[in-house]
């Protein structure tokens, strides 16, 4: 039932609006709205009940295990939420004077320092509002760097075929052309192919390491050398940073710029689709290019950077200061982890992934890269099951929902057929992993004996499989009273 269907003309949540209703007699009629919008006319109880019940139709980390590759769905500590929502933080205006924001600025300054340390970069800017914006600012900085050196021809961005879709999309957003290179059989980038594409037009390469196929690219130093020697820069997609936190740093690998997904590695909530945060880190030569503002310490106090402190800045990426509340949550999380905790993230995320990988292999599943260590994630391919039983990755994914597990990422990376990309994260207990293996085994058995069962899944959720074709062909993107039954 839609919230609009609870509406009745004249009904409302009286406590929520001002009791006054002054005339706006100084605004000429021509500017005034003629017909009121059809927002729901409902009571406060109806709103609370509707959205409480609706929430119960969701899977979430607070209710389910999400072995969702590349998304790092780990526990979001409740303290991060509670403390980021203290009244002093919530009520601070973004354009308020620095004198009235020293608490917030101190947190941001400390967070910049922490992120700089864990990534091994020379500078950090917190303003990008999600991974994709972090990517944008990274590629924009690379371009601006070349431009600033009069190197105007460099407009090619090299991207491995396994990369996240945001990588090529970002390159386009920045006015660059995309050159794709293949992934080798062992999961590492094909260096020969790389050598072939680099040249005087190379602006840079976008990489994640560990890569999206779930392995650490062992030839990263060679790659960095090839790119740097060709005059290009290296961009690190931080989506997979959780795998190596405290173990190896992008700055040390030779990357010039990195974005971090704080909503992955630093455990801020995914919120059903955001907000994220895509803070970036840069090497010394890119510091003048960072998007601003950043927070600067001066004496005992803190202030925003001045324009002249980021002389070649690619500019401003949000009206105000990025997703400030998300940054507060990341800061609180980082401080609770601390130095030792930060290192354990990579360790236990890797332990969980390797354990789960081994257990699934033992249970008869095929791995995409059976000879490699898993990083924080790994790939199972159901090519054999698709061929033998006619059940595909989607069927497994949907059936897993019935077993109480969110589906792994499926059909990504595109180069592995019928793949499930599985990332358990460090916050899940061994018995959750064992339970997931049991479910996979049970589904495999169902697939062998009763494939139709899998095709019909899920059975236990609020809806069965949805008609996506109808959704796209008969676009219905908004409720209209006129269309209601």
């Amino acid at each position, binding site marked *: 039932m839609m919230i609009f269907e609870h509406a009745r003309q004249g009904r409302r949540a009286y406590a929520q609006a001002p009791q006054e209703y*002054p005339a706006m007699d100084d605004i000429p009629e021509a500017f005034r709205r003629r017909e009121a919008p059809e927002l729901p006319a409902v009571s406060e109880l109806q709103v609370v009940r509707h959205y409480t019940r609706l929430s119960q139709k969701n899977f979430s980390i607070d209710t389910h295990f999400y072995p969702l590759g590349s998304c790092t769905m780990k526990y979001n500590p409740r303290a991060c939420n509670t403390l980021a929502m203290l009244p002093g933080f919530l009520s601070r205006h973004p354009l308020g004077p620095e004198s009235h924001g020293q608490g917030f600025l101190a947190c941001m300054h400390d967070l910049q320092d922490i992120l700089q340390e864990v990534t091994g970069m020379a500078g950090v800017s917190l303003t990008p509002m999600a991974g994709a914006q972090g990517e944008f600012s990274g590629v924009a900085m690379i371009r601006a760097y070349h431009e600033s050196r009069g190197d105007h021809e460099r407009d090619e961005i090299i991207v491995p075929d396994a990369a996240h879709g945001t990588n090529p999309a970002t390159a386009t957003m920045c006015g660059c052309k995309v050159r794709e290179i293949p992934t080798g059989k062992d999961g590492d980038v094909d260096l020969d192919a790389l050598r072939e594409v680099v040249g005087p037009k190379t602006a840079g390469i976008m990489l994640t390491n560990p890569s999206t196929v779930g392995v650490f690219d062992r030839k990263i130093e060679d790659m960095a050398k090839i790119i740097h020697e060709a005059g290009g820069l290296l961009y690190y997609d931080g989506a997979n940073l959780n795998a190596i936190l405290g173990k190896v740093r992008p700055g040390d690998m030779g990357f010039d710029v990195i974005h971090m997904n704080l909503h992955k590695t630093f455990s801020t909530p995914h919120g059903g689709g955001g907000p994220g945060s895509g803070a970036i880190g840069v090497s010394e030569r890119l510091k003048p290019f960072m998007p601003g503002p950043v927070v600067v310490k001066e004496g005992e106090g803190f202030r925003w950077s001045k324009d002249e402190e980021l002389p070649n800045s690619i500019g401003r990426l949000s009206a105000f200061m990025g997703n400030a509340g998300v940054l507060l949550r990341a800061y609180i999380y980082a401080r609770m982890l601390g130095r*030792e905790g930060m290192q354990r993230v990579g360790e236990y995320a890797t332990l969980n992934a390797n354990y789960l990988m081994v257990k699934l292999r033992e249970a008869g599943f095929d791995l995409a890269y059976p000879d490699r260590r898993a990083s924080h994630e790994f790939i199972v391919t159901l090519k054999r099951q698709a061929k033998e039983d006619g059940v595909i990755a989607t069927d497994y994914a949907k059936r897993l929902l019935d077993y109480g597990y969110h589906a792994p990422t499926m059909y990504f990376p595109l180069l592995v057929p019928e793949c499930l990309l599985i990332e358990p994260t460090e916050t899940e207990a061994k018995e959750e992993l064992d339970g997931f293996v049991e479910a996979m085994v049970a589904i495999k058995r169902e697939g062998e004996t009763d494939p139709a069962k899998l095709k019909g899944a899920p059975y236990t959720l609020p809806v069965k499989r949805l008609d996506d074709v109808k959704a796209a062909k008969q676009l219905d*993107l908004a409720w209209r009273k006129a269309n209601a039954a």
Partner: protein
Amino acid sequence: MPFIPHTENEVREMLDAIGVESIEQLFDEIPDSLRIHDLPGVPDSLSEMAISRLMHERAAQDGHASCFIGAGAYEHHIPAAVWEITTRGEYYSAYTPYQAEASQGTLQLIYEYQSMMTELTAMDVSNASLYDGATALAEASLMAVRANRKSKSRKILVPRSVHPLYRQVTQAIAGAQELDFQSVDFEREKGSTPLSAFKAHEGEDITAVVIPQPNFFGSLEEVDAITDWAHENGALVIAVVNPTSLAVIEPPGNWGEKGADIMVGEGQPLGVPLSSGGPYFGILCCSQKLVRQMPGRLVGRTVDEDGKEGFTLTLQPREQHIRRSKATSNICTNQGLMVTAATIYMALLGAEGLARVAAVSHQRTRQLRDAVSELNGVNGAFDSPYFHETVIRLDRPADKVLDAMAERGVLGGLSLKDWYPELGEAILVCATETKTEDDIRAYRDVLGEVLASVKAA
């Protein structure tokens, strides 16, 4: 080990199952030369109690002044139910709703958001949010270039009365694809953009025209005339609006003969706290015919295998994870949780509630302008209609006056000197429904005191 559940025994069992001796060994594919073994720059771990105390201390330093700054971020009352529900784990800690069957809560909510937003704006289609109002304008500019196939110029006319920070962000983002943004000046006495300023471009190949309503100064623009002019000249119209205003001000879907083609706005006033500037969310709406050029996510209503109503992400082929370098934008994660809050906010307020918020906010700003105008050397800067925000002009240095007011616990507005030096000692002020008549008197008194002590320019 905060947030790690592993016991020593389990670690042993897991290592045995993998067939390694130690966790360390799992990193053996990483070249030794790259490995680190400490992070000396990260401070020691704090317990929740310790960080809690630290954050309480820091929060106590911030945000306790009486705030009369607007300028794109507005203090409104947020019903308690909004965040009590929004932060329920099922919304807060859920993933993007790609697995539709396990995400009907979020999906239906977004569909309801799209429905409310199109009602509020009188536009055909709303997406599921962008990052903020400023980036929404950047995306709208790129979208206009894709959508207006007849125009080759990539030229977009942008009034100077659009929020300066929006213009900066739009340049930074859309500028990377070589869009040509041309400024259109405003009338000094009115604080709004005369049609004649657009007409100076008559006959040019114009891809789109941006129209803010209310504009950055709070002034109302002649949106109908400008919209019609733009359409007559083959340009698309991109509206930039404040959603609160739409409860009482003509919405962009109804501007001129045909309405705006694309509309953006900052969603923050709809139930999102000021919070130092984010997370907020960007509103993006458009006409039906432009839907396939839209960036960002869309939720559609459909049916399941039993014919039961359900909701799913749709038109995904526009997006980066399918279309990669050909996508309409690189945006992936957007501001879902803020949309959750805004949807609950709009449901709680309804059309009448939102109109009351708008009307009282406007009333308060009028009262503020009237009250300060009683003081010597203080005047309204413009004489045109405005909504809930306006510019006042002082006879002495605005920055010093504001600093002195802040010391007395009143954030008196935003100095316009850096962005609009031609306006002299001007400050942009806004009072919303959260301010009482006493607060306004207190503002006037503090300003009066301060004027007595700050020397005239």
